[in-house]
């Protein structure tokens, strides 16, 4: 029994040392009090609500990518049908995931089925309802899910690269919520989210396209009129990015397929413009692969304009002077920051779908400082009152409760440090509630011991029964609370989760301190005290 107790004491001491080490001993062993304090504040990470910063929730419009896939399939399908001489009346998009082939020539049905089966395996083919010889192609749900998942992953990646390039401290970019294609972006210490937002939102889709008609048109209608109402095959109209003083833009007739896209870029940098002093431009270099395509193309098209389009808007349409191998520049009278951000977005790559903001929260550093002060003040005051009361009411045993409660807090903080969990305002509330539960456990045990003593039991056996009986109750109350905390964690978001984490850790720590540690202290005391002496409780 005696040696058993010794091992328990050693075990508890180890746990305490491990916790203290986790709190102040990392990253470098503290040699002074100031160093220990530094370690502590770097180990306990504060949430945005406490240190200030910006928090954005945005939604990726994944269905745009699905819709794009359908558009591309229509393009491919119509080309192949033409090549194979399969005739039909109309080929059109019914929804993001469905294509309707209207009135297919009956003699080509078998050839059409073969074509879809071999070249478009991700599409389900079925006769269109209510049509004689019409067919509906539906994108398979598994493919839709795959495109959506890929779009999400790609968007998250792109946004992360863009945010990282802004050079902020410890930004967080992570998926958010359950399956609504949402991403959370947290920028600690950033009080003005506008720059981050514009960088995130920029499409960044760069395209170089051949311009068909050398001169731009003042309006879409004018362009159509010039071609007798129908655009030449394989071309489309793109608007210019800038408008003139009257708000009038211009339209360029360009090739439908780009020669170079943002994916072909190897690098992009902003530099001061030589032509327009005071403004900036973005110079880009192409990958080896793209340069192999770009060289011959520019050679063949010397003297013709080429459109540089950003997010389907023509930024400029310079005339090709000579063969260009692997570099180019985007001029557009950019300011310095604008040019920097454009270069950054080009480097990070284009977003596969557009972004919608759902939520934006900015906490100024002064509010965060206030919240910490209030939260910490409230915790310390309530802790002091509770501790004083416990010693006053339970005398020496109360000291036992004080040790258990303080140890509980140390373990809780150390666990937060080890897990890298973030302390938020609701988290502080969770700490305060942990104090409450800790008090409850101690009161339950002590009241029970008192009851047993009143019933005439000797101190040792009263302590033993008291702990055993109270333990059952404590387990029940803790498990029910942990059950609800788990639900909070699994289904909750943001602040609610922080609360659930601290509460759960606190409750587990409390089981250890209020039941195990407290018991060891009692046993140690009982072993030392006179057999007839009364227990101080």
């Amino acid at each position, binding site marked *: 029994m005696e040696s058993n107790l010794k091992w328990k004491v050693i075990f508890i001491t180890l746990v305490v040392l491990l916790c203290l080490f986790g709190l102040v001993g990392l990253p470098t062993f503290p040699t002074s009090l100031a160093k220990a304090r530094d370690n502590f504040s770097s180990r306990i990470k504060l949430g945005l*609500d406490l240190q200030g910063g910006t928090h954005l*929730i945005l*939604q990726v419009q994944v269905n745009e990518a699905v819709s794009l896939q359908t558009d591309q399939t229509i393009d491919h399908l119509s080309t192949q049908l033409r090549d194979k001489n399969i005739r039909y009346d109309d080929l059109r998009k019914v929804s993001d995931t469905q294509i309707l082939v209207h009135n297919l020539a009956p003699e080509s049905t078998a050839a059409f089925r073969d074509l879809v089966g071999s070249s478009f395996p991700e599409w389900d083919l079925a006769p269109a309802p209510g049509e004689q010889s019409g067919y509906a192609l539906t994108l398979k749900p598994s493919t839709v899910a795959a495109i959506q998942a890929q779009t999400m992953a790609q968007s998250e990646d792109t946004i992360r690269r863009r945010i990282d390039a802004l050079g902020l401290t410890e930004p967080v970019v992570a998926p958010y*919520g359950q399956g609504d294609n949402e991403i959370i972006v947290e920028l600690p210490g950033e009080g003005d989210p506008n720059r981050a937002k514009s960088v995130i939102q920029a499409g960044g889709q760069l395209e170089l396209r051949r311009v068909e008609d050398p001169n731009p048109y003042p309006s879409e209608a004018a362009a159509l009129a010039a071609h007798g109402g129908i655009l030449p095959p394989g071309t489309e109209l793109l608007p210019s990015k800038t408008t003139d003083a009257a708000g009038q833009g211009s339209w360029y007739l360009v090739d439908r397929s780009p020669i170079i896209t943002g994916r072909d870029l190897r690098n992009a940098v902003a530099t001061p413009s030589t032509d327009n002093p005071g403004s900036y431009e973005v110079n880009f270099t192409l990958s080896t692969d793209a340069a192999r395509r770009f060289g011959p193309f520019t050679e063949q098209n010397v003297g013709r304009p080429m459109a540089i389009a950003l997010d389907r808007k023509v930024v400029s349409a310079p005339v090709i002077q000579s063969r260009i191998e692997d570099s180019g520049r985007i001029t557009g009278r950019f300011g310095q920051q604008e040019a920097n951000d454009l270069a950054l977005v080009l480097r990070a790559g284009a977003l596969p779908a557009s972004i*919608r*903001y*759902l*939520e*934006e929260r*900015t906490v*100024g*550093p*002064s*509010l965060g*400082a*206030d919240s910490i002060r*209030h939260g910490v*003040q*409230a915790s310390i005051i*309530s802790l002091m*009152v*509770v501790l004083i*009361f416990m010693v*006053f009411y339970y005398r020496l045993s109360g000291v036992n409760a004080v040790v258990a409660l303080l140890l509980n807090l140390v373990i809780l903080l150390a666990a937060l440090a080890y897990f890298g969990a973030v302390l938020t*305002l*609701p988290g502080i*509330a969770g700490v*305060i*509630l942990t*104090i*409450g*539960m800790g*008090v*409850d456990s101690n*009161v339950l045990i002590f*009241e029970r011991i008192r*009851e047993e003593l*009143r019933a005439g039991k000797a101190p040792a056996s009263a302590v033993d029964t008291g702990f*055993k009986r109270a333990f*059952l*109750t404590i387990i*029940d*109350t803790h*498990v*029910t*609370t942990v*059950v*609800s*905390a*788990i*639900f*909070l964690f699994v*289904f*909750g*978001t*943001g*602040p*609610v989760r922080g*609360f*659930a984490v601290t509460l759960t850790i606190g409750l587990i720590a409390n089981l250890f301190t209020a039941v195990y540690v407290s018991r060891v202290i009692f046993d140690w005391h009982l072993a030392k005290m006179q057999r007839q002496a009364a227990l101080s409780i």
Partner: protein
Amino acid sequence: MDFFSHDVNFDWMGKTKYFVALSLTLLLVGAASWIHKGSLDYGIDFKGGTLVYVRFASTPPVDKLRQGLVQQGLGDSVIQQISDIATPNANEVVIYLPQRGQGNEALDAGKAAILNALHATLGSGEAGKQDFNEASPETVADILTRKDPLSAGAAGAARYQQLAKQLTDYRDKQARGVVANLDDLRQAGATPVVISTLRDAFYTGPFAVVNVEIVGPKVGADLRRQAVFVTLYALAGMLVYIALRFELVYGAAAVLAVFHDVLITLGLFSLLHFEISLTVIAALLTLVGYSMNDTIVIFDRIRENLRLMRGQSFKTIVNRSINQTLSRTILTSGLTFMTVLVLFLMGGQVLRSFSFALVVGILVGTYSSFGIAAPLVVAWNQWRGPGAVPVSGATSGSKTRTGEAQGRLAPAGRR
């Protein structure tokens, strides 16, 4: 030290009708207020919109501000002044603007409109100078390095960065975000030379925006649904656990009592115009945990006493159990109540609604364990009639115990 007499013999179950009356009154008052208003006061988390916290150097000119907002076409905005016991002169207002329209533009427009109105109403400062209260440490360091008031030369950059950090920290922590006069920076270690340099580049605006929250309509609706489901799941989880440990009727009684607590708390929220925010949901779930805790302590004692007090009526056993655990109930509830009361009084604006839910929750939760949960089990027992087995489930519960709980539990006592 001991506050309580040990042979309390209060007939709790005899007072059931008073408890029922009290609970019904509280529920009805809450429901009446809820129905009268048509909805609870949802915070921005749930209803969406734009919320801007503005802190002033002196008493906020609320009337002027309201006029300014109306002039900007923000007639539907709401201005609320904030203060609490810990900071009676917070000089802080919250401006709320409901969500208008959809899309990214609508989300930003509200914030921009409010900031415009603030600047238009309260003066946009001195031409060519920046507002010190909105300047980042980098800006301040930049200007100091450029002007070099301390003639530090090439080594100045690092020194000015540290000084700038010191000054903005003073502004954010001691001055709570707004410095009324640049001279105040003397307390933060700025020498007169530095201050006069700063004065060339900065003015002190009368206010600072300390917090902006913009929530789109989708998030709000999602969260509201989510909150209800989380609560229901958590209750179901607890019901299952208690049903396993005790018996189904105990679980049902405990869950009903907790439901009663949540409804009364929500009723009081409605009555006293407290806002339901995301953190309040966390508080409500904590309340559920606490109330459950109290109920389980009593049920546990009933389970134990059923074994010890064979032949006694179930009602007597329940009364005895409540009386035995009374000192613990009062101590724990008293101490936790005190804890959350401190939080309510001192926790600041952000924790206000949260701690209010807990203050109410602990009172109601403690009451409901003897006023609602225990009477429900007794009522069920009476309805089942003599010979019922109130805690047959406890035999399975007792299997998990170690040592002391041998044998089967006694059947219910006859009345």
